[in-house]
């Protein structure tokens, strides 16, 4: 598909676009934290010290301790791993499935298009969070079920985007030219049309990772997240609900972590959007 020189072009344009640069920086920062978690986190995330439960920020515990006396800073660091891995994996899967279905529906049109799109309309009439909760209730909570839940409710979004780009791309003349060169319909779809419909999908993919992190932490907050004692931002936050006044610090830091990570992805997504379809910029 792209050779390395066009990748270089992309990096140069990202560095030039203010929003994308900030976004990329934040996302990279969080990814590095996630990768270096074992090295940089001061304590074991699950190490309990029941006698120093709910202590405020101090020299030993910069972010203070949670109800089990665990170090909140370490849990926030390890939390990055969970949020990033689950959200990116789920979005990746839903892109694969969603784009495939959307592209097929758009390219071959007719009854197939009608069925697939009507089914997605139905799925889209349920709010994401409710759908995710129902799926987790069916499958049970835990890492892989969380990924499945997020994947399922993100598929319609990507299918729709893929469908709208493919529908407009397939009328372009290079598609007819490809037919004249004897290419098969499937080949045209996957070698010609799809590679040219990727930019809106990449943009939406980035934004959806941010949104997925919100949903993961939301489910964690409702008690449907990852099995304890895993360090997940939303689950840790739900404890803060009962200790708002006595131990507000339990509600501050995991929240900030979610907020900054999601903002990073949103910044990066918006920046990419400006880079990938210049029409947005004023002439």
């Amino acid at each position: 598909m792209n050779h390395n020189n066009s990748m270089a072009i992309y990096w140069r344009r990202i560095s030039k676009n203010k929003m994308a640069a900030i976004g990329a920086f934040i996302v990279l920062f969080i990814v590095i934290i996630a990768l270096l978690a074992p090295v940089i986190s001061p304590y074991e995330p699950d190490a309990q010290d029941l006698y120093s439960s709910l202590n405020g920020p101090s020299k030993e515990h910069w972010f203070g301790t949670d109800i089990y006396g665990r170090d909140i800073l370490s849990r926030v660091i390890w939390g990055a791993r969970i949020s990033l891995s689950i959200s990116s994996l789920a979005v990746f899967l839903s892109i694969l499935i969603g784009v495939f279905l959307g592209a097929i529906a758009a390219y071959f049109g007719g009854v197939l298009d009608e069925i697939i799109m009507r089914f997605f309309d139905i799925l889209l009439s349920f709010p994401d969070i409710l759908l995710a909760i129902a799926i987790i209730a069916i499958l049970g909570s835990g890492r892989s079920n969380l990924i499945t839940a997020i994947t399922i409710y993100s598929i319609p979004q990507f299918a729709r985007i893929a469908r709208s780009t493919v529908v407009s791309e397939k009328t372009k003349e290079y598609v007819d030219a490809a037919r004249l060169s004897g290419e098969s319909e499937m080949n045209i779809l996957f070698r010609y049309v799809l590679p040219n419909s990727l930019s809106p999908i990449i943009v939406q993919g980035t934004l959806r990772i941010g949104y997925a992190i919100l949903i993961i932490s939301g489910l964690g907050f409702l008690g449907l997240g990852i099995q304890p004692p895993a360090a997940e931002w939303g689950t840790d936050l739900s404890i803060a609900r009962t200790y708002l006044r006595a131990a507000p610090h339990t509600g501050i830091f995991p929240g900030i972590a979610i907020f900054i990570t999601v903002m990073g992805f949103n910044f990066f997504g918006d920046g990419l959007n400006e880079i990938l379809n210049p029409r947005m910029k004023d002439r």
Partner: protein
Amino acid sequence: MERILEVKDLKIQFDTEEGTVYALENVSFHLNKGEILGIIGETGSGKSVTASAINRILPVPPARIVNGEIIFQGKDVLQYKREEMNRIRGKKISMIFQEPMTALNPVFKIKEQMSDVIMHHQKINRKKAVKQATEMLEQVRIPDPEMVLDKYPHELSGGMRQRVMIATALSCEADLLIADEPTTALDVTTQDQILALIQDMRKNLDISVILITHDFGVVAEICDTVAVMYGGSVVEFTDIYTLTKKPYHPYSNGLLKAIPPVDQTIEKLNTIPGSVPNLLKPPPGCRFHPRCENALEKCKIDPPSLTEIEENHFIACYNPIKGGEDNE
């Protein structure tokens, strides 16, 4: 001949993320009252930028007017403040555009769009404005004005919309009409009618017209004087007859020969090698020199300025094509 408009050494640049676009290098020409001036040039020649600079609808930023004057009815338009400019736009100078499909507001009826303009300039009530709009539509020979007024733009044909646009532009007796590629998007039969319409408007409403186009036929058909633009500068400026007879500038000469004639069959077309310059990194000196057979060393260094080498015949070239191949 009283000059209604004079453009002197206009220089405009655009600041974009990719860098500075040197859109207009030096543009000078003038328009006599009641005449039709044609501005002809290819993609990137700066003809549209010039047009939108005259009635100042050029968005500043990203555009930046480096220097030059646009004297309209004695006053330099570039010095007008925003309110003054707003008063003369549509009243003194009005403009029509290329794409009839997108030139009218899709969610308002024609009646409302036209009467808005009239009411703004003439401070009269909606009813009188609509009446004036109806008269204007008759002027542009629209068969059933009442019916058209009550319609939305998407319910009219391309030609019909172009006529509505002309009617709106001239509804407040403008003195200067700028037409930016008015017929490019139309079929040849409709184009013929619109050109005829512009000629009538010039006669009946005593207006001067600037016609911007890339189609030399349109210029030859209705223009009195012509300015040929290339790479952001006016390279030749004279009356239409002189230009067709004696195109001194190598670019004008090459351009005329490159047009396939409809009245005779020829074996081979004259071509101008190479392609239009990239205005982010324009060639030094005369911007046509990379494609010019007559290019001298001088041409590569400093850009020639527009000089009157013959009475009412201006060119910007150090080594024009004189005598010899008169173009019969």
